[in-house]
């Protein structure tokens, strides 16, 4: 594999729930109960090669959206390091022009666009402010970017609410492209769209990737979309990566029990009514995850030491890693 464009080592991010300066002060003196700590992202290490698309899949509360924001550099880490082309984020983010190389596309096509700004300003604002394009030429530039995402030139003067969901998502993509990024993070970018529109946006993202060689991190709960778009997939469960493999390999021979369960639960278009496996158990609250392997209460093959030992992500086959104590390479 060639030099990675992005690298994360032992990335963690915790949130303190129900904390405020005064309450902290009171707790300090009164020895009140400790505020609850939510470990949204827990020691995650991933790399992304040039031109690669990495999928991150997981259910709600698994920390995939927090991971997206850590990688985008809009949320500080609690511990661990992030590197873009070998440079640590701390120095990269100080130089705004270079930090623009990492961009993000968001889930909600409506709330991700400022309702009070016209599309022309939404797309062109940052490009002008950071000197990507001179102010005098910004209008032509925006029209050109809009054309790339399949929007007509007269969109410039319109407001987000005048567009359909799919068109809004195109505006969101145009906004990211306008500052010439090298890495694009898509956080559930097609989750809120109808099937036919979803296909249009997925195709658009694939076109952009093919034309510009962007590296992409694609975050989704939808295994079908991930399978279609990504080269490699990381499966997350309660803040941790439990399996990481090439897409084809992961879908053909998943090794981690959670991944298997996820794939079994994935609805498929089939002619006959499915015999549903009654999968047992709820996703535990991320506020109070089980000790040891987070998955052990739902795992069919859990043993006693799963309750105590945290499994580390390890390579079981070349390029295929998982975090399970009980399953070895087959």
């Amino acid at each position: 594999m060639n030099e990675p464009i992005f690298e994360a080592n032992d990335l963690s991010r915790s949130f303190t729930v129900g904390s405020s300066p005064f309450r902290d002060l009171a707790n300090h003196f009164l020895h009140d109960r400790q505020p609850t700590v939510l470990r949204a992202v827990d020691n995650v290490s991933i790399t992304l090669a040039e031109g690669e698309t990495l999928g991150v899949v997981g259910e709600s509360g698994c920390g995939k959206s927090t991971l997206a924001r850590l990688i985008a550099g809009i949320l500080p880490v609690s511990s661990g390091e992030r590197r873009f082309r070998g440079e640590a984020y701390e120095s990269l983010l100080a130089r705004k022009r270079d930090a623009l190389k990492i961009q993000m596309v968001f889930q909600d096509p409506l709330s991700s666009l400022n309702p009070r700004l016209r599309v022309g300003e939404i797309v062109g604002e940052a490009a002008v402010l950071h000197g990507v394009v001179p102010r005098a030429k910004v209008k032509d530039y925006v029209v050109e970017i809009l054309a790339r995402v399949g929007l007509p030139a007269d969109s410039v003067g319109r407001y987000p609410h005048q567009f359909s969901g799919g068109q809004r998502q195109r505006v969101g993509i145009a906004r990211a492209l306008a500052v010439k990024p090298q890495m694009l993070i898509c956080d559930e970018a097609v989750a809120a769209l109808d099937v036919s529109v979803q296909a249009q946006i997925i195709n658009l993202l694939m076109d952009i990737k093919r034309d510009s060689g962007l590296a992409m991190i694609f975050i989704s709960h939808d295994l079908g979309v991930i399978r279609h778009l990504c080269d490699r997939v990381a499966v997350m469960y309660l803040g941790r990566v439990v399996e990481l493999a090439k897409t084809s390999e992961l879908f053909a021979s998943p090794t981690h029990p959670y991944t298997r369960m996820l794939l079994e639960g994935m609805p498929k278009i089939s002619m006959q009514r499915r015999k549903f496996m009654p999968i047992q158990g709820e996703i535990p609250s991320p506020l109070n995850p089980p000790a040891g392997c987070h998955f052990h209460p739902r795992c069919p093959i859990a043993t006693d030491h799963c309750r105590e030992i945290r499994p580390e992500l390890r390579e079981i086959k070349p390029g295929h890693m998982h975090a399970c104590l009980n399953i070895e390479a087959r």
Partner: protein
Amino acid sequence: MNIADFQDFARRFAESRSAVISLAVSVLFIVCAVFAPLLAPTDPYDLTQLQLSDALKPTGSKRMLPGEEVRANIRVDGGTASVQPASPTPTRLSIVASPCGPNCLAVGVEPPDAKLASLQVRNLPAGATVEGGRKHPIQPWWTLDNPDSNQARITSAGPLPAGLTLLAIAKSLEQETGFVFRLGTDNFGRDMLSAILYGIRISVYVGLVAAGAAMVLGTALGLLAAWRGGVADAVIMRAVDFMLGLPALLVGLAILAILGNGVSKVVLAVVIVQWSYYARTARSFAISELGKEYVEAARCLRLSPVRIMLRHVLPNCMPQIIVLFTLNIAAAISMESSLSFLGVGLPLTRPSLGMLIASGYEFIFSQKYWISIYPGIVLLVMIVAMNLLGDRLRDLNNPRLDR
């Protein structure tokens, strides 16, 4: 907001008739405030125009010219009579005298149609009488009461002695003028209509300036709290809680008790009370906006925090803040009036609506209702109109109440 959006907004606004009326009333009040000096028949701030005889006059009464007393010495010399005015101050009436026959002298007033209470001639020689007059029991003074002709005819048996000097004293009745006190007068004889118009001017000024200044200050602090979070947020919001915990009027009273009265001090008091509402509203809406993805997108585009707050977050909080502004204008007006009513707001010489209500308060049980009632109605209408306007704007802002 483009033109089509504005038209749509206006159409939705107009669906509520009470809101349209409120808007019209509010505009009317602002016009009154701006053009008060042109609209008001008198200048209530000009103390020299006041006359105590006009005090506490009911609605529709006319301004009265008070009656006056004119004195003149009349020197009779043979067939002629010369008049020398003897009043200490200039008078509207003057006394004239002319012979009316060999043994006759007519004493009258100019103008002849003036209504007189009495006309008295003193120092008549023995034997001379005034026709239809009544003689003083002791003195040689003859008096005509309510004379119809405004003329005293002095007749005597023989010719009047040469060198005789008579003293004529004419007392006129009160006289109506054309000036009508449409809403009556207060206890200083001030025209209530003018006082109310100038009072509206003060109320609107205090309302707009105070609520506006509070909006700028409070919104800035609210945005700061939302953006910085942590200690700054905690300190600002505890200050807000503290301010909201105190009764507004009490705070205003305390501030004015320390600073003394005056328009700028009332404005300051209102700002100190009201900034907390804006801070709380701006913070809560800014926090909800900051949680939206477009703000994350702006961060990802590495825009500066100041730009994100002012260009992206603030415009999206503005509708709520403007609603609060409308409602707070009414609150500021009401607070100014309350403070003035309590006697700490504005000086006596610059009556606001609240003070007019207060000054009429002591007469209201002696049936002199107009001093309190008219400013009270105006204040009520103004505050209700502003509140209805604010409510309508708030409803239009709430998409759940609108289809």
